[in-house]
């Protein structure tokens, strides 16, 4: 044991409490899984939900106990708390809408929930990491669980393809990230974000610009892949389409939000001093991501694929906030991600419900007449869609408003105008869904709809209510986000 070793204090353990709870409950679920009879698997879902709730409480309570933990490897601050709460809530919503789906597919098992919890734990570590190695470990915990989840229905051809693709491309991207970490360590002699920043900011110690720039570029590749920003977004539509719908909901929400959190943290903290080297790249990527996402979505007929492209486009909007690299930009990105998580989980939860066995009905046209057959469900979905378009008074509108406000403050005039025009393009494909739902004659695909399962209903109501609340009283979340950096 090295002489400098200081055992972590109780407060430091407390700062890691949510992750410990999540990992503990996940492990417990794995142990209980073989002991639970097939028809009681739902209880394991409940157990995991309870675990998530306790972790949520711990994460919120952790807000009053900010500070570093484990020799500065983790940092609990407003930023970390915000994203921890977000990913845990995302996990809760996904667990809620998974149960009925899995029962229908005869695939409900403890592993599913355990993997989900591990993934959330990984994300939770990611967002509070201030150290590249810890960050990388968190990312890997989250990613590897996600790869398995994507292929969870192992008899489905598309799900297998999705999992394989996700795994292979994801590994490549992680390798790039690791190269970037190695280079920056070589250049600055540290993996601590603050230490890196100090070295880079000091002209005397600053390494060769080329070296740091290359490291930034390699890390950008890794992160851009995780948040599905262009030109590293090609995996997303296939994976989102192939994975089981609740898993898609999860992939589009938690991992993406967490990846954005570390993307922001690394680039704005550690690589902030060399922002002139990456600004142009991020600007271009933001614009490309919006354009690719929106224009590709225009041509989609499969609902899951359409939402996949739409989620790429939304990543583009967050990238705009990122490009602003200001306090206002970070706040805007945080707010937008919060709204985004609710909008997307809600939308995919509807897809999971509507698809029915084997996800037979996942085409946009299948929704024909949902507005007549199930007016309440349709109305909830309509609220989410209007929020995705960005119509006030929904959270989606406020999110975009804050993002473009931050962008204009940072004198990104062209990016703002092009981004706003992009939102008008996006309106078209969301409107198509509304058209089919409300203005087309009901078809056979909506004839024998089962009633909403309680879990899915809770998710839909929560998501629709949250998007509206975030739109009408955004101050609540903004104040919370304002506490972050």
């Amino acid at each position, binding site marked *: 044991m090295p002489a400098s070793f200081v055992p972590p204090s109780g407060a430091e353990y407390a700062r890691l409490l949510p992750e410990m709870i999540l990992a503990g409950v996940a492990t417990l679920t794995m142990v209980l899984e073989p002991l639970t009879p097939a028809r009681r698997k739902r209880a394991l879902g409940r157990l995991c939900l309870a675990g998530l709730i306790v972790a949520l409480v711990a994460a919120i309570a952790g807000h009053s106990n900010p500070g570093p933990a484990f020799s500065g490897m983790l940092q609990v601050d407003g930023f970390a708390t915000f994203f921890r709460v977000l990913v845990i809530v995302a996990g809760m919503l996904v667990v809620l809408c998974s149960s009925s789906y899995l029962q229908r597919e005869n695939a409900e098992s403890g592993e599913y929930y355990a993997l989900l919890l591990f993934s959330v734990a990984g994300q939770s570590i990611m967002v509070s990491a201030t150290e590249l190695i810890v960050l990388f470990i968190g990312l890997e915990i989250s990613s590897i669980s996600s790869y398995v989840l994507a292929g969870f229905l192992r008899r489905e051809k598309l799900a297998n393809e999705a999992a394989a693709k996700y795994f292979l491309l994801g590994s490549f991207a992680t390798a790039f990230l690791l190269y970037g970490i190695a280079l920056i360590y070589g250049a600055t002699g540290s993996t601590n974000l603050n230490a890196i920043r100090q070295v880079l900011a000091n002209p005397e110690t600053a390494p060769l610009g080329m070296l740091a720039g290359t490291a930034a570029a390699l890390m950008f590749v890794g992160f851009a892949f995780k948040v599905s920003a262009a030109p590293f977004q090609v995996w997303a539509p296939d994976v989102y389409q192939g994975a089981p719908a609740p898993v898609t909901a999860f992939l589009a929400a938690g991992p993406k939000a967490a990846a954005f959190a570390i993307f922001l943290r690394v680039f704005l903290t550690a690589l902030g001093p060399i922002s002139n080297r990456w600004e142009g790249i991020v600007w271009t990527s933001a614009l490309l991501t919006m354009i690719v996402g929106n224009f590709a979505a225009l041509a989609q007929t499969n609902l899951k694929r359409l939402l996949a492209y739409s989620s790429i486009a939304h990543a583009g909007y967050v990238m705009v906030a990122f490009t602003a690299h200001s306090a206002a930009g970070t706040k805007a990105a945080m707010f937008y991600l919060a709204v985004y998580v609710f909008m997307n989980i809600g939308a995919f939860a509807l897809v999971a419900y509507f698809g029915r066995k084997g996800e037979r009905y996942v085409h946009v046209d299948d929704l024909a007449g949902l*507005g*007549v057959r199930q*007016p309440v469900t349709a109305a909830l979905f309509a609220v989410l869609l*209007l929020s995705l*378009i960005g*119509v*006030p*008074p929904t959270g989606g*509108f406020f999110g975009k*408003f804050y993002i*473009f*406000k931050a962008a*204009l*403050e940072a004198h990104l005039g062209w990016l*703002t*105008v092009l981004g*706003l*025009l992009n*939102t*008008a393009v996006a*309106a*078209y494909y969301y*409107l*198509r869904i*509304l*058209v089919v739902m*409300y*203005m087309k004659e009901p078809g056979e695909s909506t004839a024998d709809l089962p009633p909403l399962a309680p879990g899915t209903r809770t998710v839909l109501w929560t998501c629709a209510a949250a998007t509206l609340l975030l739109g009408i*009283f*955004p*101050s609540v979340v*903004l104040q919370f986000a*304002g506490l972050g950096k």
Partner: protein
Amino acid sequence: MNLLDAVLWLPLAGFVLLLALPREKVEAIRRMALGVSLAVFLLSLGLVAGVQGTAAFQFVTNLPWIASPAIRYHIGIDGISLWLVLLTTLLTPIGVLVSWRHIDKRVKEFFALFLLLEFGLIGVFVALDLFVFYVFWEVSLVPMYFLIGIWGHERRVYAAVKFFLYTMAGSVLMLAGIIYLYNRAGTFDYTVLLQMMWSGKLALDRVEQAVLFLGFFVAFAIKVPLFPLHTWLPDAHVEAPTAGSVMLASVMLKMGCYGLLRFCLPMFPAAARGYAPWIAILAIAGIIYGALVALVQPNMKKLVAYTSVSHLGFVVLGIFSFTQLGVSGAVYQMLNHGISTGALFILVGCLYERRHSLEIKDYGGVATPAPVLATMFLITSLASMGLPLLNNFVGEYLVLQGTAQVNFRWAVFASIGVILSACYMLWLYQRVFYGDTPESVRSQMPDSSAREWAAMAPLLVLMVWMGTFTQTFLPPITAAGASILERTKVNVEFQVQRQMPREVSRAR
């Protein structure tokens, strides 16, 4: 909480109330919608007295909504917004009446959305915070989209989507402009912004003004719609259900005119004056083009839709004449157009409910089986073409007079539109109501029902009232218009020119 708040929020309460009613109780839903909209109208009448004799905003409520960025729920009305609010609250119960039997599927949703639309429209006219204005602007878009898309005619989906996308594309640029203004001034508050501009605390340079003006202008011009941005209008008007067309033509188009007058002119005066000649040319082109296209339309609803393009050209021309007469005339013309075109759409809707066709060739000699309907149509047509003693005459006259003060040639060209309007209206009337009555028309053409009467009577009364007793309506408009015009003289050479003759005459 004052009267204006009640007028604004009651429709939303009605919307929630209607959603709570069970969908089978169709009759109760209709009654509830009518009751709420009538109550709103009666309440809004109380606003008239408060706005007399002042150009300042009345019935102001100014509360914080969002702390950062500072967004305030700031509403109030002056002599211009007063009448537009009243127009909205009057036409909503009328719209409910004309939809009574016409709408027979998904009745609950229809009336709920109709009240939501009223909420959005009133909000647009009373908002004094740019952000809140934008929110209402977009809120009014959604119910109209559904009204057209669900209850419209054959090509309804195409029309609804086109309507939504056109407006959306225009308004995102306005949003960029609003955000830019906030970043410069630190407030969304309209009155504070004007104050800052007036006192020179917020000085926008030439380029900024020009770009911001265009951002706002395009959003408003699409909504007006100004030629050549009008192509969404014929589709939306023709495909919408009757009540939808009425609200679209009578109120929604006024959102654009109102925006021009309220925001574009006083906030970016130099740019507005710089662009004015070009805008006036577009307006005149719209007046003549709209009228010529209306002349050759075989479809009644489309004909009426194109007359809107023509009539709204007068409004824009009046606004950009920068004269007291022109601006008063433009506002008066907004109200006139709302009443006479709304009435025309209702009457065309009555014909459609009977004969299930909008083609002029399917009609003829309707005056024989339905004399009352024919008389109502005649009065409305005469009003629409600008016959003296009826409402449109006053507005058109004021606009032309105001325009002539600035540029006589513009007035000459614009008056061609007045002549053409007589041509298309009278020709339409002749083909539909006179001549031999085919059997197919005779058998399907009962005269107006009591409900149609109830819907039309207030509009007919107003046509005469506004054409004869202009003093009921004009003073508040003139006061508010003068205050807006006063704002447009900031840093403009024009001010000096106007002062000159008086000094000279005094010296003599």
